[in-house]
């Protein structure tokens, strides 16, 4: 069969129809193809009708389209013949888009796939439904997470590819659509227009945007309604897609959905803030106190789970000695487990425990503790690489040396850099250095390329403990946790003591000025000129160059931040909260 490519001048009918189709498809690529060029590409009239009908139109409407097209055909100026392949491709493209949008309509429920939907109300609803059925599982989520649920099985057989999952996806998409629609309808009806103001665009507080959004949603709803009516029809058309084509689709789907998710700048979320809720930020201390009152459930099961891992200790030792290194992954803090391992197996051997989650950890400090304390070397090294070479040589020369490295969170902020990993990898590749580490971040394995992986020579062990990450997160400054300031205070004192008396005076001046302006909400800092004047008067500096030199030192220790004001003047600010600062001053005064 050879298709006919017809060039038709755009008629009002076509454009209006096209916008409707486009609004349903919601894909700009499609938009471009259907509305922008004055030529409308139809490949084979019969086929086209089928596709279109299958996609969105009722049979009667299809008929109209076809008849209309027939009329147009008489007036046609050009008739082009195109190859069968082009026709097929065109049809497949259409179906592809259709399928993809089908996915979107039913939520694109892949494990970490991309999503485009905006549904601010969804979470509350879900929570409500989970809560409603206490102690019992909630059937609602199953619809959303059919895909997710299938992963546990696939964790066993990773290679039982996405293809199967895709197929099953395809099937239940059409089953779940009516349900989805109902949800949508209720969702819209439960949020009448007066609550609209609660929801605003996250990036631009633009009312117009919201309205457009609403319109879009209602349009989508209409189309979905139509779709559900003819879902049987559409599913039949879907089956025509060859399996091979489908495979190709998944990748393009993912890519396009990613860009769709990230190009649209509008994300609809509610405007409520924590302040309205009168939930103040907790500091670490109260947080910890509160949590200690809560005992986690399932302690028996957790214990059982951990005992299971503890039985592996001997095997780990064996494998470490045979040249492998061990990495632990899985949900839950593995610190206690490793600590137990250390206590039970490593008592008679030299070992270093490294808290990767500690914000001040660096590879240099790790190497230092090896060279200074284990190899008892007092010299210094020009660079980290030199130090590494030296360690490697020592271990090569002295075969009696043995060292265990325990690294909690090898994937922490401070250690995940390429250079750090390279150095740690080289260390661990020494036959007499045994490394056992834990990782938590979902993307942690991305740190290692092939050559690093071969350096590490990992054996992977899954240890899902469900233990809270208490230590690991205590350094993380979560947005909900107020900084208690104790650590900041201690480091402040430490740095302060290493300063010259003049520098101390300078810093004290700045602190005092900042505390004086505590109440002023528009305080942006002390301008450099004013500060210089004050310092001069106190006989602390004699030129602005010396002052600048001092300020650089503060800045290096992150005790100072400079900011250009609107008038172009430099403003100096200490980025530490006032409570800590006043504590500090008090303490210093006492000492003096």
């Amino acid at each position, binding site marked *: 069969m050879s298709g006919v490519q017809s060039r038709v001048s755009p008629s009002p009918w076509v454009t209006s129809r096209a916008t409707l189709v486009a609004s349903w498809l919601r894909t700009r690529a499609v938009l471009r193809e259907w509305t922008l060029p004055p030529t409308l590409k139809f490949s084979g009239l019969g086929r086209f009708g089928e596709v279109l009908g299958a996609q969105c139109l009722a049979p009667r409407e299809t008929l109209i389209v076809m008849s209309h097209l027939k009329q147009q055909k008489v007036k046609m100026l050009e008739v082009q013949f195109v190859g069968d392949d082009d026709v097929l491709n065109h049809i497949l493209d259409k179906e592809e888009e259709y399928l993809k949008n089908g996915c979107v309509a039913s939520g694109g429920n892949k494990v970490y796939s991309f999503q485009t939907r905006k549904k601010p109300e969804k979470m509350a609803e879900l929570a409500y439904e*989970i809560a409603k059925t206490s102690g*019992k599982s909630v059937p609602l989520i199953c619809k959303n997470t*059919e895909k997710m649920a299938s992963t546990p099985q696939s964790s066993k057989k990773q290679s039982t590819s996405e293809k199967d999952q895709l197929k099953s996806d395809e099937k239940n998409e059409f089953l779940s659509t009516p349900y989805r629609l109902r949800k949508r309808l209720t969702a819209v009806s439960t949020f009448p227009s007066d609550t609209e103001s609660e929801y605003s665009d996250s990036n631009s507080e633009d009312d117009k945007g919201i309205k457009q959004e609403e319109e879009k949603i209602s349009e989508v709803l209409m189309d979905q309604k139509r779709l559900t009516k003819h879902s049987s029809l559409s599913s039949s058309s879907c089956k025509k897609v060859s399996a091979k084509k489908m495979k190709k689709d998944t990748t393009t789907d993912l890519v396009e959905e990613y860009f769709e998710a990230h190009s649209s700048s509008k994300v609809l979320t509610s405007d409520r803030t924590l302040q309205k809720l009168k939930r103040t930020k907790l500091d670490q201390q109260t947080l910890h106190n509160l*949590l200690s009152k809560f005992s986690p459930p399932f302690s028996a099961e957790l214990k059982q789970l951990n005992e299971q891992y503890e039985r592996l200790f001997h095997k780990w030792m*064996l494998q470490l000695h045979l040249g492998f290194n061990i990495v632990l992954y899985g949900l839950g803090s593995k610190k206690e487990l490793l600590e137990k391992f*250390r206590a039970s197996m490593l008592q008679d051997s030299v070992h270093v425990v490294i808290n990767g989650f500690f914000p001040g950890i660096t590879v240099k400090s790790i190497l230092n503790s090896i060279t200074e304390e284990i190899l008892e070397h007092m010299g210094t090294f020009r660079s980290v690489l030199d130090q590494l070479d030296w360690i490697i040589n020592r271990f090569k020369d002295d075969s009696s040396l043995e060292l265990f490295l325990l690294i909690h969170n090898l994937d922490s902020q401070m250690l995940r*850099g390429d250079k750090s990993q390279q150095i740690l990898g080289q260390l661990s590749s020494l036959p007499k250095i045994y490394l056992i580490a834990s990782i938590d971040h*979902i993307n942690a394995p991305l740190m290692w390329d092939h050559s690093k992986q071969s350096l590490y020579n990992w054996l992977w062990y899954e240890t899902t403990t*469900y233990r809270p990450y208490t230590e690991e997160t205590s350094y993380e400054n979560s947005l909900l946790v107020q900084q208690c300031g104790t650590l900041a205070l*201690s480091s402040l004192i430490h740095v302060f003591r290493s300063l010259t008396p003049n520098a101390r005076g300078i810093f004290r001046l700045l602190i005092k000025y900042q505390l004086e302006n505590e109440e002023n909400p528009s305080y942006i800092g002390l301008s450099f000129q004013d500060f210089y004047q004050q310092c001069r008067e106190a006989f602390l500096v004699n030129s602005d160059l010396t002052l600048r030199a001092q300020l650089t030192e503060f800045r290096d220790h992150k005790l100072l931040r400079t900011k250009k004001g609107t008038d172009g003047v430099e403003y100096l600010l200490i980025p530490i909260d006032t409570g800590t600062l006043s504590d500090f001053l008090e303490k210093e005064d006492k000492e003096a």
Partner: protein
Amino acid sequence: MATSSVSKVSGRRGCVSGYAVDVPLAHSAPPPPAQLRPLPLPPALDGFFLSLCPRLVASSLAEGAEGWGSQGCFVFKPDFKRKKISFPIADYFNEGESLSEDSKLRFDTCQLLWQQMKSEAEELQEELNKNLFDKLIEFLEKSHLEFRKKSTNWNYQIKSREIPTAALVLGVNVTDHDLTFKGLTAMLRDTITPYVVSLQAKECPDVKHLLQKLASQVMGCHIDMESTEEEEEECVQLSQKKMHYSMAFLSTWYRNVTQKKGSESVNKKITSSSQWKKSPPIVIILKDIESFSTKVLQDFIIISSQYLHQLPIVLVLGIATSPIIIHRLLPHAVSFLCIELLQSLSCKEHLAKLLDKLLLTTRFPFKLNEKALQVLINIFLYHDFSVQNFIKGLQLAILEHFYSQPLSILCCDLPEVKRRIHSLSEDQCESIRRLPSFMRYVEKQTPEKQVASLTNERFLKEQTMRFLEELHIYHENFFIVLKCLHAFTSSLPKYPLGRQIRELYCACLEKNIWESQEYEPALQLLRMLAKDELMAILHKCVEVFRSSPGKQLGSTAEKLKEFLAQFQSLEETESNEEENGSGSQQKGLQKTDLYHLQKSLLEMKELRSSNKKQTKFEVQRDKVVDMIDNLVRKYLFPPDTQTLYEVVYFTGAHTLREHLNAAPRIALHTALNNPYHYLKNQALKSEDDSIPNVAPDICIAYKLHLECSRLINVVDWSEAFATVVTAAEETDPNSTASEEIKEIIHARFIRAVSELELLGFIKPTKQKTDHVARLTWGGC
């Protein structure tokens, strides 16, 4: 406190100086002001600090390590005054129980076997590299001929701007390259020149570092070579000065050294071509050319080309991709290079050879079953093409086999097996009886024999010996026939039974190969082989028989030779016949027109089909194919049909996959989505894959966050969380008295959120107040 006071030094130094050294790559959010906190305390302040942070104190005391939280590294040294008890590794082999003689023996067997296999693999590697190295040496000898002759003519001066360069195309399996280079360096040092320098891109961020490394390595070699003390001192002085290394410096040094050498007796190690003795070349190996920056390489090449008439430099470039990369990296400097391309063996062939040496042989008793082998091959094919990793997988398989299978003690050479069977304990006999394959065998026996093998220990031992011998013979035959079959099928169009022997081997391990779909078509294709092809294959088969040590299939080998002889004699007679036949045919065809031609052709066709008279060759060919078919049916049945196959076959494919090819994301996902998978509590069980509201906090928070798109409002999230959790605890959410409970729930929520942040699911954002951004997509 003793340990912590020792360790503090390192922690502090690392923190103060460490900021600039290490900037985290991912999550490019600027370091928060809280970065201040890492700055630790002077020892005197420790107590003060700890008093401020009771929580940290509590946790640190609980864990028995002092000062937790103020630093990152803690060194623990055992008390050396107490005599150090050295633990043999074997202790860990037996789950820490008291070491029985049996498990020690098992561990020793395991180690011995692994060492043998490893050295075999290394030998193979050497052998495979030999070809490449020979070519390289040849190339080195050709280069710098003029330099050695000290010719001064003008032509040479012009030409000497070109650095002789060998480009080694080594393939994408970067992990294997190290071994190759190691071998190369050693070989060059032994045969050609002491001055071999190998450089890696990460050591050479700029030309200065590169030259420094180069000079120190060249002179370092020199120190190794010379044993006289004064020389050494001189060199040490040189290096201590930390001088400014440059090419000019290097060339003067080189001239000094070579002149001195010329008069002295030269090192005995270097025995090859005498002209090298006077001026050994400086071979510079750039291991990973792709990672070098263009500028560094370009500058280095231009500089060294200027010194080429003083320093005989030869470059060796290690290439993982394709030789085009040289031109892409060095658009200008490439004219200074005189490149010779050398290709190493492809990693697939390497693997095939390795399998042949390690698994398709009776030398090593250890075998992998189909699934385990498939796992290793899949990792090789779909992940890294690395032979080293394949060997690592094999090592793990051996270890796991000996660790988990108590009867693996019998997995050794036949003579050794005899000895060990005699000393089998009662428990071990019992575990033999419990083997599925042995039970299968017993069921088929007569009642008396059944009783005997289940009760009589001696009888059982005899039987075991017999079975293991049979297993050995089975393997001998299996591999010979497998290789023959592969010789036959590997050249067939479309490779119905696979192109590589590993595919055929896997198929044979899985089930009876003759029952597979592809077997019949393959045989049919074989029946259509041309004579020369068939003879080539037969030659190969004869070769297989000759190289195998066993004498089991002696008669078959004889038969093969017979066939070969017959084909050869056929060839002679047939060639005569063919001449006659073709001559007569031509005569017949010459005079006809088209119509007659068609007619006569039709007649001829009919004649042939009715007669179906086969030529002698066809008859012989069918015989050969039948013979192969018979051999296959007789010997190529899968190993699990053999009694006691469990002793030598490793079956834990899933352990291999779990430990070598793990999927951390999926594990995390399962744990968050389906806690019942790990915590076997009925309350967590759900038929329809949703999660109940009593699940761990982080699971609920995760589940709720899946409902959001890119941004999540923390307030909504927290309220949703509270709704779920209060429902689970069945408290009245409206009661005002439970303010404390609400606080606790909020705290739990905060913890769950920060844990999700640690796991990388969300991150704080400034796009909107009190919002977090999701870092994954989908989920609803």
